[in-house]
């Protein structure tokens, strides 16, 4: 079976700039969780934006769930985006809505009934450990809690794929660890997950693929490494980035 995300010799440059990605090929298999690392400005966010059709590649072919993105016209983008959940470093929550209303948004745009929405939102908040915070406003929550609201929103419509861009960038190591645990739990029930992150210290012990983007090229560590080789492989990376590009 083909991968859920396939990059085939993809290059990208923003108008007037130089290549951010150069001939990148990559496959995320169905049901797989992978981490995307690399120095700041390497193009991790760009990589995810390409998959989410927030930008179009300059060259190459991207296929998601067997469908070439080049075939998706502008008007079809909303329906395409409803196939996956996205998580952002700056949470992207609406401050004037309760936690419940924020998490309910993906169901609202799909026209679910109120009863159905209530059930699914509570289940989703339960899964991220935020039961009882439904009526709270995001501003009254800690960063970790807000990020978990964002995750609840991303998974509430049961997408097959999660894309997360620096989901732990604004969190302390403890909360960051909890958030990573959440992604692994969703992955265990079959969701494919791609996480762009600086938090190498958190992930380098995990038995998951770690991709590294640098100078426009993608490299990969195949095996789950022992602690010391992992530290060597990425010794130019800070062990934990506490928000150098906070929103």
């Amino acid at each position, binding site marked *: 079976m083909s991968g859920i995300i396939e990059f085939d010799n993809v290059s990208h440059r923003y108008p007037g700039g130089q290549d951010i990605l150069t001939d990148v090929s990559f496959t995320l298999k169905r049901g797989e969780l992978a981490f995307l690392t690399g120095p700041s400005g390497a193009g991790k966010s760009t990589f995810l934006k390409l998959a989410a059709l927030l930008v179009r590649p300059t060259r190459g072919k991207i296929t998601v769930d067997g469908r070439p993105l080049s075939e998706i016209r502008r008007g079809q983008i909303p329906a395409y985006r409803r196939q996956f959940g996205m998580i952002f470093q700056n949470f*992207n929550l609406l401050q004037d809505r309760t936690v419940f209303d924020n998490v309910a948004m993906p169901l609202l745009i799909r026209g679910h009934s109120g009863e159905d929405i209530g059930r699914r939102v509570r289940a989703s908040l339960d899964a991220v450990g935020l039961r009882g915070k439904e009526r709270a406003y995001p501003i009254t929550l800690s960063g970790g809690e807000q990020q978990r609201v964002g995750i609840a*929103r991303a998974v509430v419509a049961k997408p*097959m794929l999660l894309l997360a861009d620096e989901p732990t960038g604004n969190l302390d190591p403890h909360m960051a660890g909890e958030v990573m645990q959440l992604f692994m739990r969703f992955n265990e029930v079959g969701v494919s997950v791609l996480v762009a992150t600086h938090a190498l210290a958190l992930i380098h012990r995990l038995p998951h693929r770690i991709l590294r983007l640098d100078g426009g090229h993608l490299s990969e560590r195949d095996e789950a490494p022992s602690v010391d080789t992992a530290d060597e492989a990425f010794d130019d990376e800070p062990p934990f980035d506490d928000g150098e590009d906070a929103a």
Partner: protein
Amino acid sequence: MSASRRVSTQPSWTSRLALDHVRAIAATLAQLRDRPLSTLLTAFVIGITLALPAGLNTLLRNLDTASGGLQGTLRASLFLKDAVDAAAGADLARQISKRSGVSEARYLSREQALAEFKAHSGFGEALDILKDNPLPAVIVVTPDPRQPQAEVDALFKTLTTLPEVETTKLDRQWLQRLYAILQLVERSVLLVSGLLALAVLVVIGNTIRLDIESRREEIVVLKLIGASNAFIRRPFLYTGLWYGLAGAVLACLLVASAGVFLSDSAQQLAGLYGAQAQLSGLSSDAVLAVFGAALLLGWLGAFWTVSRHLSAIEPD
């Protein structure tokens, strides 16, 4: 695996659409209620803008009715040939007055005509220097005011062809002038209405634009999670409709109060012209037109703005 993970209980698209609309209606009404002052202000501006053409139209219609009433007082003067003597003239007047559609026919002999002219022209004694009376005898015919215009015209036509009648003069020129003026005013009202409709469009468009601007963040999130354009657009279109609706209600209230305010003076004025015009308020047709136009303009203004500004807001 992917199939089983996808949302399996998608509601049918009809119930979904109905639910979407109900939610958009509830949400937009709640938004407007949450900022009553700015909502009222916008509705007021639209109301006044709509009240002007609606009021002018009502005024015009009243003038039309009033001038129709004046037509009843229209008279024709039949100037008789010199050969017709006083007895024959008076006889002819009696015959004419018996015709259907004639309410009065009064004979004025040459002497009476001169006397009347002396009395009304202001030349007075100066006319004494004339050796001969230059005026012909005349029969002044007043048609029944309840007659339709066409029959009055037909009547005058037959009277003109009577053998005793030299010429006929219809006392009508000023009415024709009035009609010409009314027509001009009517055109101007149409023009002004068009311009004011444009103003309503701009006011609603601008209000919606500010609304879009203040909800930029929400629109970005909606686009990120895959909300369709129709879904994002819907609340703004409803907001436009509500502004139009509120404006229409206010416009009708304004015109109605203006009608009450002006009715006394209108009656006085009508009295001066011998007409008994009752000032009529907005007709039900006009009310319908105001609401229809307001809703259409509200929707159009919102649609126009939304199409121009929503696509510019993209997540980056």
